[in-house]
């Protein structure tokens, strides 16, 4: 594999992201914010702990869906950005597989998770392992019975959409949701790492 993960993380974690004179951050074709992670984990945890058991699956699906759509559009913005062209693209020998490895290096550089592609069956299946991710912070003692890596799950599926789901569609009508993610392990549940299995939807 030609992708130098360390180099990508070193280069792209240094990006200075801050609001301009309008207080907005325009980049990668989207508006970006850089908020304390706790606002998102607090919302997802309070929401999923407050809903009834019958509603839990729906609430979790909506949280994953928000990340899935975010990952699809922002992911496309990332892999077509100047930063990507300068740092990652020269390392790409085999697309889209190397693109996926590069994308997860960027994913780590952005602080979403320290995540790597553990297994990849092109066009069919991907297994992601994350040895640190902010969504695990909802548990500080003991282990939870509920997995909480909604963002990681959604974004992992989105990256497979971008790799194997056909041409990028800015409306999301096609291309998006051709894959789905399932969390199978979680640091918040006492596992050594978080694991997401992505398969065809």
């Amino acid at each position, binding site marked *: 594999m030609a992708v130098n993960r360390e180099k990508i993380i070193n280069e792209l974690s240094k990006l200075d992201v801050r609001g301009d004179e309008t207080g907005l951050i325009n980049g990668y074709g989207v508006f970006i914010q850089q908020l304390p992670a706790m606002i998102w984990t607090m919302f997802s945890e309070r929401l999923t702990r407050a809903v009834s058991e019958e509603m839990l699956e729906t609430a979790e699906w909506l*949280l994953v869906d928000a990340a899935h759509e975010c990952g699809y559009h922002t992911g496309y913005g990332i892999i077509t950005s100047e930063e990507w062209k300068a740092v990652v693209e020269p390392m790409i020998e085999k697309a889209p597989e190397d693109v996926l490895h590069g994308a997860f290096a960027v994913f780590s550089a952005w602080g*979403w998770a320290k995540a790597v592609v553990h297994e990849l069956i092109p066009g069919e299946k991907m297994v992601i392992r994350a040895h640190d991710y902010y969504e695990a912070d909802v548990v500080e003692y003991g282990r939870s019975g509920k997995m909480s890596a909604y963002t990681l799950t959604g974004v992992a599926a989105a990256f497979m959409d971008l790799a194997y789901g056909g041409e990028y569609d800015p409306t999301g009508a096609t291309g998006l949701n051709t894959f789905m993610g399932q969390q199978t392990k979680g640091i918040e549940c006492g596992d050594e790492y978080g694991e997401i299995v992505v398969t065809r939807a």
Partner: protein
Amino acid sequence: MPDNTLQMRHTFDRERCRHEINGLTSVLHCHHFASLTTQLANDCQLLDAKKLLAHCAEDTFYLVLTDYYRKNNIMGLEKRFRVGEQYFAEVGLGKLAVTYAGPYSGEVVLEHSHIDEGWVKKWGVTDKAVNHIGCGYVCALFAAAYDRNRREFTAFELQSIARGAAKSVIRVMDVTDAGGK
């Protein structure tokens, strides 16, 4: 550097792949994520998830602002509001200005708003209030500036960019019997 100028200490923990701003793990997200989370809050009426999202914002930013004021000895309303306005802009939430503030009420104007403009970019103008995160932020800002506690202020939009106005205007009101200190 003047003490009403916000200082953001941004670090990256290479071992854990985490960004920290002033000691708190921070993460980049886009307007799609914020819009879909807001839509989820709007749709989940059984739980009043709009209030839940606003409270999550209030709790988060109350911690951010009170911690910053304490560590940097930021005293006085004007300095505290300036820091709060700068923080809002630095993290990409938009351009916020406190129009007036008193112990019982206040008003802020948003010339730009990530939540509103992101919503419009994604789905167009709406007839619903969407900036629950902004309202939570404003409650946190007033509570922190006045050395009050969380949930002592409430906020609601008088007009908003997402609903077609040129600017958003958020009114803040004291909700305690005790009033201001």
